[in-house]
């Protein structure tokens, strides 16, 4: 145990996404260097995972719910044995509605969410951000380019995330479609070739630059586009990712041959890009709904 060890309340708040960004970063930073607290976090995290079966039982004991479900199932189902799955699925995916942080945020959502939507409604535009599309920094293994025919409406449902720009155009119900630009970073050098002349590890620079350009647009948009509960979760996830990046960079610097640290570093960069992307994608969706 260290002097500045976390109490379980702080850890719970961290897991529930109730901490401010700096506090959240402090927690993940501390957890990274303190096994006792890491263990406590892991336990608490396991406990929240246990809420699911508990919730399921609670759901099952709600007689009206049960009855409603069987009726709903009867109307949408062809085979009976899948009903338990839907019950379970419902309990599972509505779990986030029942976490304390969500309930706490619910009131805020009502107030700020409406305000935000009003603001968004009033000709809220940010073409710079709208141009930012799904980014996949192709690190070690480049994926085969997807084949998509723009002429066939069949591509409206795309199997491949990389074809999203086309899909987004076709799925848009507005005639004046904003043309998204795909940001793809390719040609990442292999891990093996050492290149520390510019202060980056091999392959790191493309991630860092992509993140920098995404961050600029997202920073200006995130308040408007995210609801309070979602915003809190975003900050927590960002703290987790930033902490992982910082830790792994230090480790790779210390031991450039640590392939595992590199693997975690690059996957953390990709997580950060995905996280930033989720904001810009949402912003684009919000804009297209008007």
């Amino acid at each position: 145990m260290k002097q500045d060890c976390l109490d379980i309340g702080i850890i719970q708040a961290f897991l529930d996404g109730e901490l401010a960004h700096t506090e959240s970063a402090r927690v993940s930073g501390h957890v990274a260097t303190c096994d006792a607290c890491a263990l406590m976090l892991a336990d608490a995290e396991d406990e929240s995972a246990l809420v699911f079966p508990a919730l399921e039982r609670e759901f099952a004991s709600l007689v009206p719910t049960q009855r409603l479900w069987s009726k709903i199932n009867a109307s949408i189902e062809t085979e009976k044995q899948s009903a338990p799955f839907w019950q379970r699925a419902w309990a599972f995916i509505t779990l986030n509605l029942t976490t304390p942080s969500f309930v706490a945020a619910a009131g805020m959502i009502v107030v700020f969410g409406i305000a935000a939507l009003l603001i968004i409604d009033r000709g809220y535009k940010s073409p710079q951000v709208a141009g930012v599309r799904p980014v996949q920094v192709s690190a070690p293994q480049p994926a085969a380019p997807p084949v998509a025919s723009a002429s066939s409406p069949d591509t409206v449902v795309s199997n491949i995330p990389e074809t999203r720009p086309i899909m987004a155009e076709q799925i848009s119900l507005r005639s004046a479609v904003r043309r998204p630009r795909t940001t793809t970073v390719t040609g990442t050098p292999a891990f093996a070739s050492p290149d520390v002349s510019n202060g980056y590890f091999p392959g790191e620079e493309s991630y860092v630059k992509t993140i920098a350009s995404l961050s600029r647009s997202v920073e200006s948009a995130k308040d408007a586009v995210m609801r309070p509960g979602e915003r809190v979760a975003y900050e927590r996830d960002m703290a987790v990712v930033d902490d992982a990046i910082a830790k792994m960079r230090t480790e790779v610097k210390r031991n450039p041959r640590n392939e595992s640290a590199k693997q975690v570093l690059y996957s953390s960069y990709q997580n950060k890009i995905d996280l930033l992307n989720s904001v810009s994608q949402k912003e684009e969706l919000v804009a297209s709904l008007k």
Partner: protein
Amino acid sequence: MTGSGRKLEYGFVLAVMALALSLSATGQTVVAPPAAPATRSIAKAEIPPVPSMFGESTERSIKVDPSINLSLCVSEGTLKVNGWTRNELRVFVQDGSNFEFKTQQTSPKTGDPVWVMVTAVSDRNKVVPRSECIRGGDIEIDIPVNAAVNVKGQDVTSTIDGVRKASVKIIGGNTFIRNVTDGVTVSGGQGGIAVESSSGAMSLDSTTGNIVVFEAGPSDIGDIFRAKTNGGAISLEKITHRQIEVNSISGSVSYSGSLLNGGSYSFGTSNGSIRLTLPTDTSSTVSASYGFGAFRSEIPITTITENISEGPVKSTVGRIGGGDSTLRLTTNNGSISIRKP
């Protein structure tokens, strides 16, 4: 606070379910006759709205090509899409916007619509809708089983059942997909995603919602399964895709099923645990990178290389059985466990 809060949430869930039930009770009884074949390239529905006993409800139907593509935008409401064997598209909106069909493309062979949009239209005595997105208490759609359905929207609880393809892109609301035969793409925003008994390439992502999938497989060789959530948990059972990529930032990942020979499986989370339940005859090369927490396996692993010394990352590369598939596991703060069924 949590007690009453949860009660409230249950109340909300009950209300949603009641809505869904009332939809299923009232919606399915009125079915309009098929519309005349649309011969023009841009054709509007020929069927006038069918008045309903309940508030402002509209029902329209149109004859369509069996492999119809449907696009619609829903600003809020409960959406239920059902595949049926008729070559007809039927849309019923209860307590919501009036709407029309916009045929974007027709089949050169039959002249029937192959791509239809459903868009909101203004009623005479109402203000012009701001967008083409439908607002409805309940929206129910029947569509040919070979259809591709594309939904985008704001707060939508949707159930899509028994069509060829499904694509959903929403800000919030839960999405249920089942019996879809050739591909599922869901970008669920804050909502949760549940997929059951479906095949084809899958791409499921959510920001704070959980993802749960039960019984999914490829429809073509090479179909990839992807699931990604920032803050939610991911639970997968009986997935038979040969390439599976699963990632969460602050949630746990669980997988129960086989690893197919030649398959490639990647499970990652920054701040959560990874739990796999694998059959004892599994054959896989495992590469695990983990920070805090432990790596445990009930199934024997022959270690090839291992680095569990100091430093923020530990790693283990090992073989289960003959090593015929690739399994990559990555977590920062969390444990990895492999269990027997």
